[in-house]
């Protein structure tokens, strides 16, 4: 049974938001992964806790705080809108930002494990072959953590496809702009006769999530093989 144009729009928007949030969180997540895996500093536990907060905090809290900080009337939101032309409130970019925050802990965890798994003796070996630190990072460390980076992005992507609470609180439920798959299902369950189309979307959501998890597992296996090969 082919997808209807409305369903395709919902799916396309969900993918766009998920992709944008995964890409946007990549630099921050990778940076945090390196900091947490390799540096010792006072306050590390606090930073670790902050990164993990979205896992346990009610999503509506994140959404509300975003609204307070980045709404059109909030100082920061107004500044971004007036000077940089960036608007998050009630836009798909806001949905991407909300789900990026929600997915950050998953991405950081996956990448941090990959960074911790890198045998630092390989980096030392590269240095004795004349490679300066940046070249060691680019030619040894990064290729070795790459499966973990992809895995982290995939988890963030999958988390974004399922994000509901923070999104609806921050950017509301606007068809064609911020109405991603979970929000569309929610809307359909609120109207009479919405059960059948809601179920179609549920099946879609299950298939997508399953596919993402399976690809993630494949990446993990590949990473493990690579790490053992050393």
């Amino acid at each position, binding site marked *: 049974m082919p997808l209807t144009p409305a369903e395709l729009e919902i799916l396309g928007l969900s993918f766009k938001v998920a992709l944008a949030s995964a890409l946007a969180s990549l630099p921050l997540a990778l940076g945090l992964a390196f900091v947490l895996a390799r540096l010792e500093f006072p306050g590390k536990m606090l930073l670790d806790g902050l990164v993990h907060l979205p896992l346990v905090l009610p999503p509506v809290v994140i959404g509300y705080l975003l609204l307070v900080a980045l709404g059109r009337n909030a100082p920061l939101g107004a500044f971004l809108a007036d000077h940089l032309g960036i608007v998050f409130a009630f836009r798909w970019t806001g949905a991407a930002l909300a789900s990026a925050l929600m997915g950050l802990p998953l991405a950081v965890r996956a990448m941090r494990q990959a960074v911790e798994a890198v045998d630092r*003796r390989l980096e030392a*070996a590269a*240095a*004795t*072959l*004349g490679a300066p630190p940046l070249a060691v990072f680019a030619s040894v460390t990064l290729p070795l953590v790459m499966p973990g980076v992809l895995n982290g992005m995939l988890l963030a992507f999958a988390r974004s496809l399922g994000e509901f609470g923070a999104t609806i609180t921050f950017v509301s439920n606007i068809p064609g702009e911020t109405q991603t798959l979970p929000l569309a299902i929610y809307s359909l369950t609120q109207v009479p006769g919405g059960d059948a189309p809601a179920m179609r979307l549920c099946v879609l959501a299950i298939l997508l999530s399953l596919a993402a998890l399976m690809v993630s597992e494949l990446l993990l296996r590949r990473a493990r093989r*690579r790490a053992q*090969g*050393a």
Partner: protein
Amino acid sequence: MKLEVAIGAQLGAFALDAQFAAEGGVTALFGRSGSGKTSVLNAIAGLLRPARGRIALDGEPLFDAQARVDLPAHRRRIGYVFQEGRLLPHLSVRQNLLYGRRFAGRSGEGELERVVSLLGLGALLERRSQDLSGGEKQRVAIGRALLAEPRLLLMDEPLAALDAPRKSEILYYVERLRDELGVPIVYVSHALDEVVRLADTLVVMSEGRVLESGAVGETMARMELRPFLGRFEGGAVIEARVAEHDLDMGLARLEFAGGTLYAPDVDALVGERLRVRIRARDVSLALARPESISMLNVLAGKVAALGEPSGASVDVQLDVAGTALIARVTRKSAAALRLAPGLPVYALIKSVAIDRHSVGWA
């Protein structure tokens, strides 16, 4: 090549305080595991920063605590062959070999071909590094270090993880590096037969300190007189030249400064120079030249010094026309023969005690 090392560091509960100098050829750092050999290599490579002291190569300081010099590892141009190979797992053998080339500012397949043929890597080039056997990994690691054009090559027990046939294969390649390329090598080992086969200079370490260092023959002779090294499979090392092969009897006649030595199973050609290790426990002493005896090697010399007695035995250092030899005899015999410095004696050595592991190319 001139390497000067004088460093100190506190590594947890372990105190490192090492001083030695080496010039060209192969320098062996010898000692039990945990004696600080690898820490010294890491300090030379720039992977470990000593607390004090100085490391210089050809007069150029690599590390100097007082002058605040600490050249980073990637600018030292010192190759390092690790115990476990440490090939980059995401790269092919060829990519591993060429890894250091771009940083050395060199390219060209000519050098690659030379190293590939020297180490017999031709069939491995397109393989993934994790699909190699232990011996193959070590050969690639050696080639990779060489292709980065190092001024000095460090090797940390490169044979430790290998079985006996692989060991002799890699040893053969290390000998070729020394003889054909003339790369100065600092070689860490706790296996005496490797040291004897390879080293020109010997540095003996124990508990973070250098006990003895110098030319391999003299150092081993001095080391023998130090009982705390325990039941050390030691002895003297002499340099000799193959004078003649007796093919019927399977014996080679070797000439050295102190006389003639018959040894079995020598596969060197007439005229080639060899290094022969003679274990102290294989040397007996007599006051008069014995007649009608099976031992082929009877060398005239005199007692140079007596070591500390250890249990029932005592090591006697001999001077055989300028060549140092060690004999391990019982204290009972030493008393009966009234061994004392200056006493003329004959050293008796069974030829069959000199086996393949005792002989290496000089």
